């Protein structure tokens, strides 16, 4: 028996491989991104692709499932919003080969734009959902999800969250077993897959029958586990919430739900009879609680004490259920008095000069999701909205339609290369079609940056690092009808400002593309080669201590206090200092300095 420590996401990939998975598609999103990377790097017998967005990923994987092989799509919680359209109808058609969608929630929004509870999608979409709590369960639940999918002819949702996806624990490895379903397509099955009203009405009934059977199955599902200990309190919980509660109240009785939709009603009623008081511990929404209350079961504690926002933890559960009896640990140092260490754009990042330029122009910036969202933080504060992928492009258009030509020159939309391909193309088409005049900037850094360097249709490489076609953003813009298409070199701040200003002022749609500005961490693009000098230094003969260079928020630049004066006699309270180990020589601070006090360094 081989046992390995695995991350939850790696265990999902392992489980899918052991279950005979053939086709996997995903769009990266924290905390789900490692699943597809695992397939691409470690499982050559699985076809794995980065799709342009989650909707396409679900369509690719469900096509494979309809063709009779086991298939998986994985995404973060908000990704399922994008993919909801195919999901809601695939629930009607069913599949042939097992089809599992992994959806990774992010309670406490460690790296997301909202905190939605994906269990609601299972109820809304009428599909079953499993929820593992650790890596072994990630593997086991993935395997059984494929079996459930084939047995009940339905997509199955596997819900994880940050503390499951990104926690490591031991996993027992087993061999791969191929699915027994015979692959192939049969035109005679069209009534099952063509969702026109006459067929929908038939399938609509099939959906209800499926859910009824699944409900009965849930009552005997082997991962819905009753643990009877002290019967004074019985906890109903799932996933990591169960683990937190078990940690602090090991003596109580538990009903741990491995299947969180549909609920095992008989089992719940049976459990309720065995224990005196029921406690429901669940992160985010009162999902179980609402259902269980509707069954007429009396609940001692649920969301009256358990928070309905942010993530749970052992102490939060303990405090909620013990109330005044909970003993706070001693406060030795107030953490709020300590300087925080927020994430920052890397030294040399091309987003820094671009947003500095936008700030100088005084533009209202409709933003998007990526590393560049960090530009909203002080001192840059040059990004003013972030809703979802692609949103800013359409919103800038709408804002310009609302405000009229007086606002020409003051509004712009920015988004990354991966984000543009995810959801930015259609709103750009809309701007042209509906005679808009807004400006869109693609911050092309040649990779999906923030989630850890995943390939996309514009990088020239597949998930498996095979060379492939590379989208040409200018040609694409031209085909959509954009007439004014410009390139900018963000490292030339003056020229970048001139071009953006000119384009924002035009009474027509504009597309600006950042060129030759790859992510600083993308080694294959050799990002440092474009810089003339290895690093810059502050010339203390000239530095007046004006702090202008600190406005770009470069991690390599700091402030050194100390009264003094420049060589030509200007008094100062300190000087800027450049850490040459961190500086990459991008020259942006030298362009910002008004006194030529930042100069190339020599080794």
């Amino acid at each position, binding site marked *: 028996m081989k*046992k390995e*420590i695995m991350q939850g996401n790696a265990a999902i990939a392992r489980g899918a491989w052991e279950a005979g998975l053939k086709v996997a598609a995903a769009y990266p999103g*924290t*905390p789900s991104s490692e699943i597809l990377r695992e397939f691409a790097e470690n499982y050559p017998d699985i076809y794995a692709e980065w799709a342009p967005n989650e909707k396409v990923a679900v369509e690719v994987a469900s096509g494979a499932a309809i063709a009779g092989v086991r298939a998986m799509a994985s995404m973060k919680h908000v990704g399922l919003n994008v993919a909801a359209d195919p999901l809601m109808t695939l629930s009607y058609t069913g599949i042939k080969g097992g089809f599992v969608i992994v959806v990774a929630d992010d309670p406490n929004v*460690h*790296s997301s734009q909202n905190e939605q509870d994906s269990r609601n999608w299972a109820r809304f979409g009428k599909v079953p959902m499993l929820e593992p709590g*650790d890596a072994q369960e990630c593997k086991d639940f993935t395997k059984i999800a494929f079996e459930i999918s084939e047995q009940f002819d339905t997509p199955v949702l596997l819900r994880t969250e*940050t*503390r*499951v996806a*990104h*926690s*490591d*624990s*031991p996993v027992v490895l087993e061999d791969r077993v191929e699915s027994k379903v015979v692959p192939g397509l049969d035109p005679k099955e069209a009534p099952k897959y063509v969702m026109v009203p006459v067929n929908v009405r038939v399938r609509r009934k099939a959906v209800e029958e499926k859910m009824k059977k699944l409900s009965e199955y849930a009552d005997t599902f082997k991962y819905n586990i009753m643990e009877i200990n002290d019967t004074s309190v019985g906890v109903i919980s799932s996933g*990591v919430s169960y*683990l*937190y509660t*078990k*940690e*602090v109240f*090991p003596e109580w009785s538990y009903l741990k739900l491995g299947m969180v939709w549909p609920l095992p009603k008989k089992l719940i009623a049976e459990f309720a009879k065995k224990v005196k008081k029921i406690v429901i511990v669940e992160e985010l929404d009162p999902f179980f609680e609402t259902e269980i209350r509707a069954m007429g079961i009396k609940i001692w504690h649920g969301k009256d004490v358990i928070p309905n926002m942010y993530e749970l*933890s*052992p*102490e939060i559960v*303990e405090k909620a259920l013990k109330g005044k009896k909970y003993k*706070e*640990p*001693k*406060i*030795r*140092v107030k*953490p709020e008095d*300590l*300087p*925080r*260490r*927020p*994430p*920052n*754009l*890397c030294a040399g990042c091309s987003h820094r000069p671009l947003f500095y330029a936008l700030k100088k122009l005084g533009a209202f910036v409709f933003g998007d999701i990526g*590393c560049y969202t*960090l530009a909203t933080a002080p*001192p840059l504060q040059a990004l003013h909205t972030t809703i979802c992928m692609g949103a800013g492009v359409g919103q800038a258009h709408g804002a310009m339609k609302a405000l009229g030509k007086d606002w020409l020159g003051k509004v712009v939309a920015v988004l990354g290369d991966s984000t543009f391909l995810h959801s930015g193309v259609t709103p750009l088409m809309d701007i042209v079609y509906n005679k808009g005049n807004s400006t869109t900037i693609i911050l092309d850094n040649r990779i999906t940056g*923030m*989630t*850890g360097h995943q390939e996309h249709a514009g990088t020239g490489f597949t998930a498996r690092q095979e060379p492939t076609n590379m989208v040409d953003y200018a040609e694409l813009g031209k085909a959509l009808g954009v007439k004014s298409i410009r390139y900018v070199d963000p490292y030339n701040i003056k020229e970048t400002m001139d071009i953006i200003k000119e384009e924002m002022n035009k009474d027509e749609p504009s597309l600006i593309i950042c060129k030759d500005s790859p992510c600083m*961490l993308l080694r294959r693009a050799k990002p440092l080669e474009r810089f003339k000098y290895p690093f810059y230094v502050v010339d203390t003969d000239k530095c007046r201590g004006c702090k202008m260079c*600190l406005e770009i*928020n470069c*991690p390599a*630049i*700091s*402030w050194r*206090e100390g009264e003094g004066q420049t060589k030509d006699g200007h008094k100062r309270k*300190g000087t800027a200092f450049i850490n040459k180990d961190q500086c990459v020589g991008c020259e942006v601070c030298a362009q910002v300095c008004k006194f030529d006090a930042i100069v190339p360094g020599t080794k």
Partner: protein
Amino acid sequence: MKDNEKTTNIFLSGVGGQGTILASNILGEVFLKAGYDVKKSEVHGMAQRGGDVTTHFRFGKKVYSPLIKYGDVDFLLSFELLEAIRYINWVKPDGKIIINKQEILPPAVSLGQMKYPADVEKTFKKFFKDNVWVIDGQGIARSLGNIQAANVVLVGAFSNFFPEIKPEQFIDAIKGLLAPKLHDLNVKAFYEGRKAL
């Protein structure tokens, strides 16, 4: 395996790029092979961009929660002084603290808006007396020719707290996780760290 069934809680903290994740991976391999159940949990995402990094590491006969309960840390293993003091309230009254004496300035300090906390070591000693060890991980790693090995120096120092585990078990884990060309350096770093405490 030790007969006591209690779970041991190790909290690792540092700054992105310091190698805390490798350190926790080494611990994971060691304690798994020694027959324990192991859980470790970290928040990924933006660590490469200079943010703080923490890992909750737990081992025992059966480990439930992937997160340590606030106030229940047995060992605080910290790679940076500010990132040590930030979690001082997490440590049990009789907990042990092992700190790498490196300062990495956060932006608010670089920009002159806030002060870096003074006397981190003193503050820890005030509350934890003799249960505080400060190691010059960078200094030791530099003397071995590569400052990158500071994380393994810390692991070496930390290994002293687990007499039931042989140094060879740590070495096996280090070799299993690193490329062969890094073995010599890191084996030395481990033993130098082990001597340093």
